[in-house]
């Protein structure tokens, strides 16, 4: 199955070309257009209970769509926010995705929900995180551009900018500076990430946009 991420970075969409018998698992509602030869089948990914957990705590849909074809065809997947998409090829390792980041994966990739901890929750990154593991490609997206960063030692990220990270990355929530600096700098809580491993960051924050819109409503 070939893929192409088009219209990057602002309005990225994922074009997948499926040959006969190929299948892909996509987030419910991600399909924008497709050949009439593509069949869509909804299913609970990982069973009902796991799907329910992913829905409640992972920020994903209850159902996943399995798209397949008997004769070949193409399909276009998008995400709700304007922004870039990335593909990571898993070779037996795993990747954690923040809520709402997942777009699609090969059917050989397994999806599960992992406990992210109180620290992650304090940094407004959620109590749980989606874990993709196994062998195959996984496509995910973010709001704005996606920055890839290989971390060896410590790296500081403002909360709500994290999109995905490898399990070898440790997360700590901390103040951006002293108490006064953290209060008045507008940075508040930050995530202190420690490698080795790779992180994917989004250049924009939906929370910041929401706060900006909110401040202009009244």
């Amino acid at each position, binding site marked *: 199955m070939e893929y192409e991420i088009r219209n990057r970075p602002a309005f990225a969409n994922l074009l997948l070309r499926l040959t006969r018998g190929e299948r892909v698992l996509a987030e419910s509602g991600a399909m924008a257009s497709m050949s009439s030869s593509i069949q869509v089948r909804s299913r609970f990914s990982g069973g009902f209970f796991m799907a329910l957990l992913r829905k409640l705590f992972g920020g994903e849909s209850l159902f996943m769509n399995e798209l397949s074809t008997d004769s070949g065809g193409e399909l276009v997947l998008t995400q709700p926010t304007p922004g870039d998409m990335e593909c990571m090829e898993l070779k*037996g*390792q795993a990747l954690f995705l923040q809520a709402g980041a997942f777009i699609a994966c090969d059917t050989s990739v397994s999806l599960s929900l992992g406990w992210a901890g109180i620290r992650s929750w304090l940094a407004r990154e959620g109590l749980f995180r989606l874990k993709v593991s196994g062998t195959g490609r996984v496509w995910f997206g973010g709001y704005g551009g996606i920055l890839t960063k290989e971390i060896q030692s410590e790296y500081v990220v403002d909360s709500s900018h994290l999109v995905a990270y490898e*399990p070898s990355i440790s997360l700590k929530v901390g103040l951006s500076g002293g108490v006064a600096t953290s209060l008045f700098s507008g940075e508040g809580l930050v995530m202190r990430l420690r490698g*080795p491993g790779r992180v994917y960051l989004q250049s924009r924050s939906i929370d910041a946009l929401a706060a900006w819109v909110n401040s202009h409503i009244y």
Partner: protein
Amino acid sequence: MSELQEIQGGVFSTQLSTGRAGATLRVNADGVHAITAEGQQFQLTWGDCQLEVGGASGRMWFCSDAARSLTLFSESPQLPAAIRAAAPPPVLARVQQLEAELQRKARRARLGWAVFLGVCLLVILGGYAGLRHAARASVSLVPHSLDEKLGRLALDSMDLGGKRLDDKQLLDGLRAIGERLRAADAGRGFTPKLHVVDADIVNAFALPGGEVVVYTGLIRAADRPEQLAAVLAHELSHVARRHGMHRIAQTVGVVGTVQLLFGDVSGLSAAALALLREGAINAYSRDQEREADSDAVASLSRAKIDPRALADFFALLQRRDKGLPSALRWLGTHPDLGERIAAVQRAAAALPPHTPVALELDWKALQARAGGRTAPAIDP
């Protein structure tokens, strides 16, 4: 030689096209070895292996070279176990150091959770206590006229279980007792409005504002007028302490009570009325009942009526209730009668001695007006 244990993990290496891959790790006397799914092999000898613990779970073990160009890692507890079994003493010392750090972190995490849960519990209990207190406080803001309005509306709209009697002799007898109690400050702030309902029910109840309903069954069952006076004193305490209003406030909440205060008598007052109608007879809490008993003893004493009459009336009820299964008695909101009798007797004994003044009414004639027959007993 036994076969080496295979441990699931991964590799970070500049030699890999994507920089990382899942791998199977093996540990032996030379060091840590890894083989990826595509067959690429990596090795770090004990001399080169710098051990660290971390990762998203905090339990991932890393073995890296000094330049960090190669890192072998696994989250499986099999990796530290295998290292302990095969590594030379300097590496073992590092393993022990890291395991001690992990244990310290786990203890801190447990402590953190305990503190977090404790704080949550305190917030919940504090919030509940605060709401109860606020509901109580909000009742004090509501004018007495609202108690009277709600009580009157509830009385007019509820099913009393019998016909209201407009019998001058009965009502005069009750009012004489009510007046004696009112003079002794029972039902303070509210004027008792007494009603008699013809039903074989040995009970009486009070609604907010001073509406008190006495069943003819109670008048017939009482041995002497002081017992009737004791029941009235108890009910007037519910009125004076605005127990019914507190019950409404706790049910509809503080906001609801404030809305009532500001005149929203549509939806909320309907809910309040429903509560009063459905729960008027037996819905005060155990604490409220104890409070009313204690008040009744004090006001009876002030009115120069023997306060032990309340205990006698409870004893009478107790005799009548014998036939009820004990579980059913326990389920009632009223505290256990034996406990109430003992509490009333203790409170009466603690009062300064006084000579009771008899109630000026023709008790036999009053009972005769109330039907004159004995109310049917539960236990025949």
